[in-house]
C-alpha cells in the first residue's frame, strides 16, 4: 500500500511556469521538428527504423543541430503507418519507410519540396471532422518528456485546483460540465466524485481502470502511450476533490509500452514534486502506483478489478455496497476510466461551460473511437458526441473497402450490439445507442461488410464470454456455454425453430439473472443480431418435428 516514501522535491506554481517557459525556449532553438509516431501500431510497422534513417539523413546534411526528431503518441491513421509529421508546416506523411524518411529530409527540409506521393491531405474529412480534446496532445508532444507536457499547458489544471479551488468547487465544476463515465455505462462523473467525497473512511483511493479488455478497442492504450501525464494529472485532481492520497492505475499486461511510459511519467512527476507530499505548496499529498493486470476480461468490472489490485482472483461481488462506499480494502474508492480522467484537466482549465457546449445536452464532450474492421481509414478518432454514425463511417472512415457494402457497425465489444445500415443516421450518444440495443462502450467500433455472417459474429462474441466468464455465478458460467452450443448448432445448419426459441429464452435469462456486467451483457450481441438480422438465423434453420434436445451431447466449450 502507500508504504514507501518517495520523491522529496517541492515545486511551486511559479516553478511550474518557469519550467514551461524553459522548455519553450529549448524548443525554439530548433528551426524545425520532425515528429514520428511512436505508438504501438506505428512502431510495429517500423517507425523506429524510420527515425534512425531520418536522424542519419539529418546528420549527413548537417541539420542535426537545427532539427529535433521526437517520438509522439498516436497520430490517428494507424492503418497507414508509420506516420511522420514535419512541424513547421504540419505536413503529415504516411507509410514512411527508411527510404521515404530520407527523402523527407532531402526534399522537404532541404529543398522545400514536399514528398507528394506519401503526403496525407490534411483537409480530408478524416482530419477535418474530428474534434480533439482528449487526444489534443497525442501526436504533438514527446510522451516521455514531462517538460513537453508542461509546456503544452500540462499540470496547470492541477495547480489551479489545489491553489484556487476548494474540493467541493472542483466537484461542482465537473458536475456542471456534464461529463459522464467514458468506460461505457455513462454514469455522471461529478455525481460519483461527490459520493466518494461524502463517504466515510480514514483512507480513500482513486483508481484508474486501464484494463481495456474489449477486443477491437485501443483508445485507452493510445492515450496512455501518447499522453500519460494527462492521466496522472486527472487522477491527482480527482484525489484532491474526493480526499484521497493514493491512486492506482490498473493497466493490462498486454500493453508493455503503455506500462513503460506510465512508469516513466510517474517517476518524472515524483522527481519534480507534482506527485508526492504537499503538491505545489498545498496541503495535498498524492501518490500513484501501477498495478499490472494479468489477462482477465472480467477485471474491467469494477468490483473484480479492485479484488485484482488486492492480489486476488478477479471475481466480482454483488453491489451495493458500491466501491464509492466500500472499495479497496473496504475503503471508499473512486474508479474511473482512462478517458474520463483525460477529460478532467481540460474541464478545469477551460471551464464546465466550454465543455458542455461540445456534444449534446445529455452527452457532453467528445468521444474517442477506435475505428477498425472493414473500413478504409482504420485508426483512432475523436468526435463530438451526437455526431451521426454515417459521418463516422463514411466521411471519417472513408466507407468500406471497394466492392463491398456496409452491413453493420459493432460497438461496445462483447457487451454491445450491432447497428445496421438503416440506423446509420443515428446520433452517437449514450441514449441513442441504447435505443437500438447497443451501448457506447469504451469506444471500439468495428465495421462489418456483406462478407460477415452475423450468426458467426454472435458465436464469436459468445465464445469470448464463455472463455472469460469467471465462473462465480451459474447463469453466466453455464448459460453462456449453452448459448454458444445453440449458436454453433444453428450456424452449422442443424438448428430448429425450437432451438431458436430456446436461444432467445436463454438470452433473457442470462441477462436478467447474472451477477455482474459481464454476464448481464453477454447475450447482447445475440439479442442485437437477432433483432436486426433475424433472417440470417431463420434461413439456417431446418424443419424438424417432435422432440428436440438442445444438448447434442458434444462439449463444445473451448478453453484457450
Amino acid at each position, binding site marked *: 500500500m502507500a508504504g514507501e516514501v518517495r520523491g522529496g522535491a517541492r515545486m511551486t506554481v511559479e516553478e511550474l511556469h518557469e519550467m514551461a517557459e524553459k522548455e519553450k525556449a529549448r524548443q525554439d532553438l530548433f528551426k524545425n521538428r520532425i515528429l514520428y509516431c511512436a505508438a*504501438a*501500431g506505428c512502431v510495429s510497422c517500423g517507425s523506429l527504423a524510420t527515425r534512425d534513417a531520418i536522424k542519419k539523413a539529418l546528420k549527413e546534411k548537417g541539420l542535426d543541430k537545427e532539427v529535433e526528431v521526437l517520438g509522439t503518441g498516436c497520430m490517428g491513421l494507424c492503418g497507414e503507418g508509420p506516420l511522420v509529421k514535419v512541424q513547421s508546416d504540419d505536413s503529415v506523411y504516411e507509410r514512411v519507410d527508411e527510404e521515404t524518411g530520407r527523402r523527407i529530409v532531402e526534399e522537404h527540409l532541404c529543398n522545400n519540396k514536399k514528398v507528394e506521393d506519401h503526403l496525407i491531405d490534411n483537409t480530408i474529412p478524416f482530419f477535418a471532422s474530428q474534434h480533439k480534446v482528449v487526444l489534443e496532445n497525442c501526436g504533438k508532444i514527446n510522451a516521455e518528456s514531462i517538460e513537453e507536457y508542461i509546456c503544452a499547458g500540462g499540470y496547470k489544471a492541477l495547480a489551479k485546483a489545489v491553489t484556487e479551488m476548494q474540493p467541493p468547487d472542483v466537484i461542482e465544476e465537473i458536475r456542471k460540465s456534464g461529463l459522464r463515465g467514458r468506460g461505457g455505462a455513462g454514469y455522471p462523473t461529478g455525481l460519483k466524485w461527490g459520493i466518494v467525497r461524502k463517504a466515510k473512511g480514514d483512507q480513500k483511493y482513486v483508481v484508474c481502470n486501464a484494463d481495456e479488455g474489449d*477486443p477491437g478497442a485501443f483508445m485507452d492504450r493510445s492515450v496512455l502511450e501518447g499522453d500519460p501525464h494527462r492521466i496522472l494529472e486527472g487522477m491527482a485532481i480527482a484525489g484532491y476533490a474526493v480526499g484521497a492520497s493514493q491512486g492506482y492505475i490498473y493497466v493490462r499486461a498486454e500493453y508493455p509500452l503503455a506500462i513503460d511510459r506510465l512508469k516513466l511519467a510517474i517517476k518524472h512527476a515524483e522527481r519534480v514534486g507534482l506527485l508526492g507530499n504537499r503538491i505545489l505548496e498545498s496541503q495535498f499529498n498524492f501518490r500513484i502506483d501501477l498495478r499490472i*493486470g*494479468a489477462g482477465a476480461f472480467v477485471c474491467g468490472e469494477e468490483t473484480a478489478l479492485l479484488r485484482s489490485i488486492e492480489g486476488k482472483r478477479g471475481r466480482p461481488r454483488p453491489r451495493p455496497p458500491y466501491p464509492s462506499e466500500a472499495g479497496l480494502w473496504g475503503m471508499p474508492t473512486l474508479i474511473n476510466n482512462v478517458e474520463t480522467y483525460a477529460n478532467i484537466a481540460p474541464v478545469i482549465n477551460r471551464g464546465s461551460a466550454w465543455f458542455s457546449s461540445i456534444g449534446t445536452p445529455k452527452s457532453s464532450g467528445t468521444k474517442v473511437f477506435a475505428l477498425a474492421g472493414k473500413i478504409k481509414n482504420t485508426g483512432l478518432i475523436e468526435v463530438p458526441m451526437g455526431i451521426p454514425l454515417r459521418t463516422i463511417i463514411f466521411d471519417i472512415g472513408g466507407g468500406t473497402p471497394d466492392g463491398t457494402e456496409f452491413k453493420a457497425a459493432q460497438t461496445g465489444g462483447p457487451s454491445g450490439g450491432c447497428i445496421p445500415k438503416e440506423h446509420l443516421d443515428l446520433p452517437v450518444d449514450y441514449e441513442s445507442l441504447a435505443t437500438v440495443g447497443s451501448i457506447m462502450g469504451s469506444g471500439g467500433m468495428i*465495421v462489418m461488410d456483406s462478407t460477415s455472417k452475423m450468426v458467426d459474429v454472435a458465436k464469436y462474441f459468445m465464445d469470448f464470454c464463455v472463455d472469460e466468464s469467471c465462473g462465480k455465478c451459474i447463469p453466466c458460467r453455464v448459460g453462456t456455454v449453452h448459448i454458444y452450443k445453440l449458436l454453433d448448432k444453428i450456424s452449422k445448419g442443424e438448428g430448429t425453430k425450437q432451438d431458436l426459441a430456446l436461444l432467445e429464452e436463454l438470452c433473457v435469462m442470462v441477462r436478467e439473472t447474472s451477477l455482474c456486467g459481464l454476464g448481464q451483457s453477454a447475450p447482447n450481441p445475440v439479442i442485437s443480431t437477432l433483432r436486426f438480422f433475424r433472417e440470417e438465423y431463420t434461413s439456417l434453420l431446418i424443419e424438424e418435428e417432435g422432440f428436440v434436445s438442445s444438448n447434442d451431447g458434444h462439449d463444445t466449450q473451448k478453453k*484457450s
Partner: protein
Amino acid sequence: MTPTPSPQHPSGDNRFKLLDRTITKHHNSGDSLIEVLHAAQGIFGYLENDLLIYVARALKLPLSRVYGVATFYHFFNLKPSGEHTFVLCMGTACYVKGASAIQKALETHCKCKFGETTADNKVSLVQARCVGSCGLAPVAVVDGQVAGKLTADSAITRIKQWQEKSEEVPA
C-alpha cells in the same frame, strides 16, 4: 508490515535472489501476489509448481490461493512454452478481417492446436484476445514483435523459417 527474510531455496538457483528482491520490495505482502507472479514468470519463463510453493511461503499465503490466482489469469503459464511463440490476435477487428482462416491454416501446418506447442518443441501457438493494434488487422505477436496485415501464407512462412533454420534467422 515488517519484512521477513525469504526462505532460502535449497537448489542455490540465483534466480530466486532476483525474485526475492521483488518480494522484499512489496514487504512480503499477500496483496502483492499478482506483482510477484509477474516477476516470477518474467524471471523463470513459466510458473512451475515448486515456484508457486516458494511464492506461497514467502508471502505467507495458502498454496490454494496462489494456485487459484495463477490459474485464473490467462497471462500466467504453468507449462513451459516452445522455443518460439506465435500469438495470433483473435480480437474483433482481426476476426472480421479473417484471423480464423489463419488460425486454421496454422493449426494444420503445425499439427497442433492453439494453446499447444509443436511436437519438436519449436513453436507455441497462442491466442490473444486483442493486442490493441487493430489498425493493422489481422495481427500476430511473433516472438514479442507485432506483425500486422497477415495472411495465412505469410504466417506459415514465418513459422517455416523457425522450423527450417532456426539458428540463422533470429526473431
